[in-house]
């Protein structure tokens, strides 16, 4: 069973994304907002994909507040974690935001919140997990 790491600070989104991923995607889902745990899980090779909220308001790394773009940059800089695919999620919707966040973070994909196409979201996650597994096998 593929294992998804959900990095999200919004209670409502944690609930619905977890249920969607578990029930419709048949994924195992772990949630964390702690950058140390996120990095450690990704290093452990147990994570097949990360869904990363950009706007995190409680996450601290080395004593400083950090957002999803910065956490993704850390993952992409580390040879042990750079191959784990990351989907950024955010409700930021200004023109150009998507390209800027992807370029800055190194994430593979971006999903705009609210996520209204549940089936499409699950299919995207499945597709990226399968693609990553076949590239790394």
């Amino acid at each position, binding site marked *: 069973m593929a294992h998804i790491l959900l990095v999200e600070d919004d209670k409502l*989104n944690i609930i619905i994304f977890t249920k969607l991923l578990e029930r419709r995607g048949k994924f195992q889902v772990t949630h964390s907002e702690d950058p140390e745990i996120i990095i450690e899980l990704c290093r452990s090779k147990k994570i097949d994909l990360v869904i990363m909220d950009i706007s995190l308001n409680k996450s601290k790394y080395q004593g400083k507040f950090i957002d999803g773009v910065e956490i993704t940059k850390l993952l992409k800089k580390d040879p042990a974690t750079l191959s784990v695919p990351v989907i950024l999620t955010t409700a930021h919707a200004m023109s150009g935001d998507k390209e800027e966040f992807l370029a800055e973070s190194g994430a593979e994909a971006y999903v705009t919140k609210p996520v*209204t196409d549940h089936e499409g979201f699950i299919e995207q996650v499945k597709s990226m997990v399968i693609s990553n597994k076949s590239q790394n096998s």
Partner: protein
Amino acid sequence: MDQELITELHDIFIEEMSKRIGQLAHNVSIKDIDGVQFIAHKIHGAGGTYGFHEVSDLGKTVETAAKTSDWDQVQLGLCGLQTWSQQINKTE
């Protein structure tokens, strides 16, 4: 949209969103523009995922208005959210 899941999570969403709208109203009353923007962003990001597109739209209106400190638009958006909350809680 996964209707079965939406139905299952309906009550959780209504309860949590009512709290957020209350928090938004408080932030507006004390003119905490950063707090307004923060809560509005959360409302915008969650509403449509649960099938309540109008909630996301109103949250986005408030969030956008907060970025330019347009208190008139913030108040309009807040009124819209409060009206939605009153109506949805009446039908519960």
